[in-house]
């Protein structure tokens, strides 16, 4: 089978970002917290590949550490929101009737809160923190996954083997776990990949606004917010972290689209 181009490009970008994130756990070219004010705004050279920032910290090291933070936040948020949402969707499909209606209505209400609004509330009450950013992004993922999981599960419930399992006396929850969940994995994973991209964008915006990671932990969003005040002295600082965000978001977005094209032939869209 011929793999779609978007899948390949997406996989390469994702591999690069994940690779940089993983590598930064073991090794970065320099200590990204290492201040060296005498060497601030250094131009790129053999030691500092992309130069240094206003405090003389190595940019490449900060960017790779930022990749790690971004990935960690997105992973935690999508895992948390995705599993709650998927469980709700499964439950709605399994029980049906008013329970299903109720879950879906609640999901609708969830759509009224963009991650930013939720993060703002949490920041106002508890003070800004990376945990709050994760919770806010996880929260908006719940209704998304509830819908996807319910739609997919409702289809699986009509299949023969589910009827067979019911005839064999399995209860609805056991069927959901043993038969429905494995069969909705594909659309859920596809959605997770796409939401991963959304989460990276959301985290960047929250960190930029100061509602996410706090100093000194480097994230792409925070690097940009610091760069903004230095736009006249060091415009290059405003460029690299943004490029990293674009690469990561585009990578996961393309990967998700590509996976969907591969796993769901019915949905092959006109492109």
């Amino acid at each position, binding site marked *: 089978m011929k793999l779609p181009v978007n899948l390949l490009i997406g996989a390469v970008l994702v591999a690069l970002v994940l690779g940089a994130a993983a590598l930064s756990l073991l090794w970065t070219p320099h200590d990204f917290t290492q201040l060296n004010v005498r060497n601030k705004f250094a131009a790129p050279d053999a030691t500092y590949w992309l130069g240094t920032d206003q405090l003389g910290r190595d940019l490449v090291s900060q960017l790779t550490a930022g990749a790690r933070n971004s990935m960690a936040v997105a992973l935690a948020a999508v895992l948390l929101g995705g599993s709650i949402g998927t469980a709700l969707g499964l439950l709605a499909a399994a029980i049906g009737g008013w329970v299903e209606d109720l879950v879906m209505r609640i999901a609708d209400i969830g759509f009224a809160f963009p991650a*930013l609004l939720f993060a703002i509330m949490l920041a106002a009450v508890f003070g800004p923190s990376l945990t709050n950013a994760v919770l806010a992004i996880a929260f908006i993922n719940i209704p998304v996954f509830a819908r996807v999981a319910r739609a997919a599960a409702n289809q699986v419930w009509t299949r023969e083997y589910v009827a067979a399992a019911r005839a064999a006396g399995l209860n609805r929850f056991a069927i959901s776990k043993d038969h429905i969940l494995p069969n909705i994995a594909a659309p859920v994973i596809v959605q997770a990949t796409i939401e991963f991209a959304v989460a990276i964008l959301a985290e960047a915006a929250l960190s930029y606004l100061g509602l996410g990671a706090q100093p000194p932990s480097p994230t792409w969003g925070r690097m940009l917010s610091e760069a903004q005040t230095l736009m006249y002295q060091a415009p290059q600082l405003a460029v690299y972290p943004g490029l990293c965000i674009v690469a990561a978001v585009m990578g996961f977005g393309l990967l998700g689209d590509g996976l969907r094209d591969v796993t769901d032939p019915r949905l092959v869209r*006109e492109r």
Partner: protein
Amino acid sequence: MGYFLLRRSVGFILTLFAVSVVVFAVMNVLPGDPALTILGLDATEDALAALRDQLGLNDPLLTRYWSWVTNALTGDFGVSHSFRVPVAGLIAERLPMTISLAVSGMIFTVVLALVLGIAAAANHRKAGDWGIMFVSQLGIAVPAFWLAMLLVLVFAVNLRWLPPGGFPGWSDPVAAMRALILPTVALALVQSSVLARVTRSSALEVMRQDYVRTARASGFSRRRVLWRHVLPNALVPIVTIVGMQFAALVTGTIVIENVFYLPGLGRLIFQSIANRDLPTVQALVMLFAAIVVTANFIVDLLYVVIDPRLKARA
């Protein structure tokens, strides 16, 4: 039709109600002492007690919720702690800024997306289509605030064509519009990338329909067929996305106002967070959520206006 309106309106009101419960719950029920949050750790016990009393924190939750909602409905959002003036007044002062930005952003988003999406569909599988698809794929991945920074870098810092931020107010309309250009573009480019793709795929779907062939057979120009026959029929999915994007756009103004130092509601929210001004934050979050819910309600009604077949079923 009447029944449809009634059902949608009831749903709309119920959703607003549920949203208000969520906002109130997160801001008031979650463990934490608003008085402590507001005054800080070094506040005296007397001051804390006085503030709790003033905020009505000693009343039962239900009473507090009820008075918040009923007051809000009469336009009373409480008093801001940091500014020591009614929140409603603060909002009224800053609302025109935010509305200007949201409206210009929305208009630019829709116009750009329709033009690009229809152009891509009309050039299906040709260079123009690929080009638009590539740029929009990129646009989706670009954070609006970063795009804003790049625009400032190029058009304000380097070329000095436009101001890097701030808003002079509408008393000088030319300066006001100049100040809105970069924020509008930053807000709209990203959103229109999504919408252009939806427009394109919806238009391609419609272009396969028999009635488009009929329009062509009627001797109409390509342009006329695209804009008068294809586009209206492609609108239903487009409007759905516009409704969802309105939410993104309105919260986008919060971000963009902070990039460009525009004195709107988005700036007010951040000042209020910094000032630990909980009543103001609560009112603003509720306002933004209400705008999102209202946008979706309007979209629901729009479907019926667009498609006479739905009117029959509604």
